[in-house]
């Protein structure tokens, strides 16, 4: 997939789409751009903004051109997008997920050295199926006071996310993949998910495969998160477990995330919100978006750039001299960014 990437014409820069997003988005995106420049990352950003009117081709504030840009570049970075309240359009995140068929959400979760939480031994990856399951949107009222909601599990989507999980484990030097399920209750749906995971596991004999019931997984995670390596799971469980893991290391302001889509698309994103309360005040913490951009670089096999940036971010946080307000510090976004540049 690396070979058919789009390079900009005059240089051999890799073109990547950037959605700065809303609220604090532009500030933290600036921080990423600045750090990429100082680190000499061979990326040329193609910036796209959320529109002010609905594009009828996408039924959303995201334009067709924006989506095309991601499809063409196959790689992108996205800040938070607040979906404007009102009817007649889809949520921006949902539009991206559906249109680009972002089927897997990958969240590396590791304790940041120097930033103390109650859990200092976390180093795991959650991989969440992102297109079906409990989020099918199929619900109806049977009679007054009785509603049904459908959970859909397909072989195709389960195989696809399982394939990605094992591929990820193999290419990232991980030893073990745990499939998280509740097949003791949902025998057919979660049963199918497990069956697909087992099939894929057979193709990766070098990787240990195990199955863990979700409630037990919750308990094990809070007692000893070091028990886990790569976790793969259906949509709802992934939603819950990935946030739980983010909580272990200090919250959404610190956790990177990357979405994998059809045809090898990788769209990295900060999973926190647009934080309208501090937008435009130079107070936002860019760490989550920065670490997300690091996952993007790793996807592009630019590992030395990824390492340099990740190290600089971690060093800056560990040193503790420059930290933003959410981490108990007093620094502005620009001071924190500058400190990272100095550590590069």
């Amino acid at each position, binding site marked *: 997939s690396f070979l058919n990437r789009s390079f900009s014409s005059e240089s051999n820069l890799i073109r990547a789409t950037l959605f700065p997003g809303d609220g604090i988005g532009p500030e933290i995106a600036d921080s990423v751009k600045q750090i990429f420049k100082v680190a000499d990352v061979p990326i040329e950003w193609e910036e796209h903004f959320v529109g002010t009117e609905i594009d009828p081709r996408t039924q959303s504030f995201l334009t067709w051109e924006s989506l095309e840009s991601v499809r063409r570049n196959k790689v992108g970075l996205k800040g938070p997008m607040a979906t404007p309240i009102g009817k007649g359009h889809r949520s921006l995140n949902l539009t991206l997920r559906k249109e680009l068929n972002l089927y897997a959400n990958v969240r590396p979760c590791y304790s940041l050295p120097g930033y103390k*939480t*109650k*859990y200092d031994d976390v180093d795991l990856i959650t991989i969440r199926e992102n297109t079906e399951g*409990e*989020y099918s*949107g199929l*619900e*109806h*009222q049977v009679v*007054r*006071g*009785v*509603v*049904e*909601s*459908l*959970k*859909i*599990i*397909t*072989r*195709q989507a389960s195989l696809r996310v399982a394939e990605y999980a094992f591929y990820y484990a193999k290419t990232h030097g991980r030893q073990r993949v745990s499939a998280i399920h*509740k*097949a*003791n*209750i*949902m*025998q*057919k*749906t979660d*049963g*199918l998910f497990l069956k697909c995971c087992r099939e894929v596991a057979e193709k990766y004999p070098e990787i240990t495969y195990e199955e863990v019931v*979700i*409630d*037990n997984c*919750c*308990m*094990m*995670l*809070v*007692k000893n998160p070091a028990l886990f390596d790569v976790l793969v799971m259906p949509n*709802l469980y992934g*939603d*819950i*477990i*990935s*946030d*739980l893991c*983010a*909580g*272990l290391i*200090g*919250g*959404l302001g610190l956790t990177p995330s990357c979405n994998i889509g059809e045809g090898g698309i990788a769209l990295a994103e900060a999973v926190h919100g647009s934080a309208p309360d501090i937008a435009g005040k130079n107070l936002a913490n860019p760490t989550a978006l920065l670490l997300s951009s690091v996952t993007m670089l790793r996807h592009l096999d630019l590992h030395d750039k990824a390492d340099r940036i990740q190290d600089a971010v971690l060093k800056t946080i560990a040193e503790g001299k420059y930290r933003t307000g959410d981490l108990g510090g007093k620094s502005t976004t620009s001071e924190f960014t500058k400190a990272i540049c100095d550590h590069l």
Partner: protein
Amino acid sequence: TYMPRPGDGSPRPVTLIPGDGVGPLVTGAVEQVMDAMHAPVYFEKYDVYGDMKNVPPEVLESIKKNKVCLKGGLRTPVGGGVSSLNMILRKELDLYASLVHCFNLPGLPTRHENVDIVVIRENTEGEYAGLEHEVIPGVVESLKVITKFCSERIAKYAFEYAYLNNRKKVTAVHKANIMKLADGLFLESCREVASHYPTIQYNEMIVDNCSMQLVSKPEQFDVMVTPNLYGNLIANTAAGIAGGTGVMPGGNVGADHAIFEQGASAGNVGNEKLLEQKKANPVALLLSSAMMLRHLQFPSFADRLEIAVMRVIEEGKYRTKDLGGHSTTQEVVDAVLANLD
């Protein structure tokens, strides 16, 4: 002081299901302690095992007559699902509320402090409806059913529990931003009931955020009310941060009956090693039986039992492996007996 009605001191029959694996070990612990206290209960013991096709009718009759049952774990058979005996008992007796009390025991070091959470979980519908089918090869559906009737009664129970136990806040856990109708109906019911309890604070939290909050600021939670699946996850998370499923008491209750068991793990029957070495932790079930004594209106027996267990934990000399110790079940029981007032 507690002024009983004449005759309240006569012993009450309780159905006892030792169950599988370490079940008999921990129910045996309860029997010994009840004996030593001369508690006004006697057990009607039944052999029930997880691999049975059904709960024997005489067991159901016994529970229906006694209203109260104490039970060890029942193994969920491979294939499991709605045919598990734990589920059958809940269904047959309409035990619609499951309650797990997750709290820090003084003297037991854990990552978090000031955890004192009661998870009240709807036990009869939701994702556990057991309605699943294959639409076409490779595509399966599972139905989650939420009804006004069940949502209302669990919400009522949660608020009533909070009111009777001097709890200040009830948090409803949901995913109504995605499951707008199903979890929406659950929330609507909670709000309606909340409006009848102006002295109890009410809030709502989305389940993913809730899991994150549990591992970062668990002290913010008091009583939580949840649909079936979320409750299972929240209770196990809360149990984990407070010290593990081996110490958290709980039970299942409906309009007419109650079954007391280890809180966050009805299916837990331990492993071979635990059984062989006789090292299962009896603390959860001992605390559950204290809950049972209170339920039976024997408050001072409940207090005595709880205080003795707490002393043993605080002293720290006799703890099982899950709490970082080496003791056997019997050593812990003996320590509890020695600490009984």
